[in-house]
């Protein structure tokens, strides 16, 4: 057991300040353990959002020494023994109190995305698809919605373009639907015009902070941007479609997914 100093931001939308706490830390302890100890021993009203404490629910997102992290998966021993550990709420979302922010904006974005609509099952009533084809989307479905990617995305964080851009989490959600072999909804025009795929400048911070190690940028955002290019920016592809009389949106709706 040894003592460590934590600098925790306390306050609400009106204002607040950093408060220092000295906490006994033991082997294997994570940041969330230290916050719980502060709650139990020093400040029972310290507001922290958490649920599973095993990195599976994505509730305890906060910023530790300036980096967006899940506090339940951040070991205290990862920091130099003498270092003061600064704990702050997420920057991108409005604060409720202490380390808890109002992330409801994210839930609103999810509602805007047209849901999955599968094509009709085969004659035996079963849907078939192959593991090799779903590997890609299964990666995206690992997302625990901790919204760390949303927090770190500078488009939302610093430029506050929440009106224009749904953020990496939801571009990835779109990717998981668009790449689904059985889906029949065309979301590409909306992805460009309403969800703002062009606002992302692929600076990759979303991928860097993802606690599930999902390769958001390379596997979800860029392939989605490329699909937008197919539809709207590639003159050759557009001309070819025109000559052949192809309509990708209709083809998809008819279940003719390439």
């Amino acid at each position, binding site marked *: 057991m040894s003592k460590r100093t934590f600098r925790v*931001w306390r*306050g609400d*939308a009106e*204002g*607040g300040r950093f408060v220092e706490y000295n906490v006994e830390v033991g082997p294997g302890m994570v940041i969330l353990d230290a916050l719980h100890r502060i709650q139990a021993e020093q400040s029972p009203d310290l507001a922290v959002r958490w649920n599973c404490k095993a990195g599976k629910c994505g509730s305890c997102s906060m*910023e530790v*020494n*300036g*980096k*967006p992290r899940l506090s339940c998966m951040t070991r205290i021993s990862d920091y130099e023994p003498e270092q003061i550990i*600064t704990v*702050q*709420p*997420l*920057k991108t979302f409005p*604060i409720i109190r202490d380390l808890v*922010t109002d992330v409801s904006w994210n839930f609103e974005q999810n509602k805007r995305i047209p849901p999955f609509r599968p094509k009709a099952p085969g004659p035996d009533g079963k849907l078939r698809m*192959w*593991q*090799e*084809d779903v590997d890609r989307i299964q990666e995206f479905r690992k997302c625990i919605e901790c919204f760390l990617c949303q927090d*770190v995305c*500078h*488009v939302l*964080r*610093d*430029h*506050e*373009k929440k009106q224009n*851009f749904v953020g990496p989490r939801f571009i990835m959600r779109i990717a998981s639907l*668009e*790449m*689904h*072999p059985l*889906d029949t909804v065309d979301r590409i025009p909306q992805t460009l015009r309403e969800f*703002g795929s*062009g*606002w*992302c*400048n*692929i*600076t*990759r*911070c979303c991928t*860097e*902070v993802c606690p599930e190690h999902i*390769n958001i*940028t*390379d596997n979800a955002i*860029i*392939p989605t941007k*490329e*699909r937008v*290019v*197919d539809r*709207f*920016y*590639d003159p050759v592809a557009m001309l070819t479609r025109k000559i052949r009389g192809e309509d990708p949106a209709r083809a998809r709706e008819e279940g003719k*997914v*390439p």
Partner: protein
Amino acid sequence: MSDQLVQIGGHGRGFGATTRSDNWWIGPTLTFLGLSAFIVYASWAGMQGAYYWADPYLSPMYAPLLFVDPTAPGSAPVDHAWFGTFPAWWSKLDGLLPGLPKRALSTPAALILIFPATFRLTCYYYRKAYYRSFALTPPACAVEGVRRGKYRGETHLLLFQNLHRFALYFALVFIVILAYDAVVSFFKDGQFGVGVGSIVQTVNAILLAGYTFGCHSFRHLIGGRKNWMTCDGGKASTHHRLWLGCTRLNGRHMLWAWMSLFWVGFTDFYIRMVSMGVITDLNTWD
């Protein structure tokens, strides 16, 4: 760093505002220096219009050779150029821009460097690199950058980035040309042999291929755009195999980007030094 006004949540505002306590600025600084060094060297080397040829080696910055100026020292024989010597009017352009090297405009490199440059400029990796280290949007994760509120992403001026795949088409042609040059570098006066330069040129072609075939647009075009990459029955298909191979390269796209960038510069430098007679190429011919 600028003054950090502590606001709600303890987050600062303004350029450079962050609570990060690690050395976050090292990454973008190194990228800035690395890219700048290459740009400076490539511009200088490209504008020389000379010492790019050391039989049988040809600098990748000058390939393919469209026109040559046979009067330049260290230039390739005229029969190596696709279209012979530079037209006379072209060579006269050089005098119009004082202060630049003698053959700054009538250099064979001027005609072709634009293609690999565009490929790298619109590359999804380099975009990250220079948006961070040059444009500072943002300089690092969770560090506030510039243009607060004025940022428009790739929605307006930068829409051209969407044409990356066309730059890719040219880059693929260049891979063929550079591979051909690499093969040619093993033959001097029709005689097979091996020199350090041949190996340097071969490595260059390989690294560029690794970079080009790991391109995000390539990955999309060869399979990623499809949702059914496997054949019916889940059997492996060409699409899927190609896509998997590309995915493997793509996972290290940044590494390939830097290695190939460095090696292009190094290949030019090596051939230039041999051509200038500063160093002697070890080979089986002499």
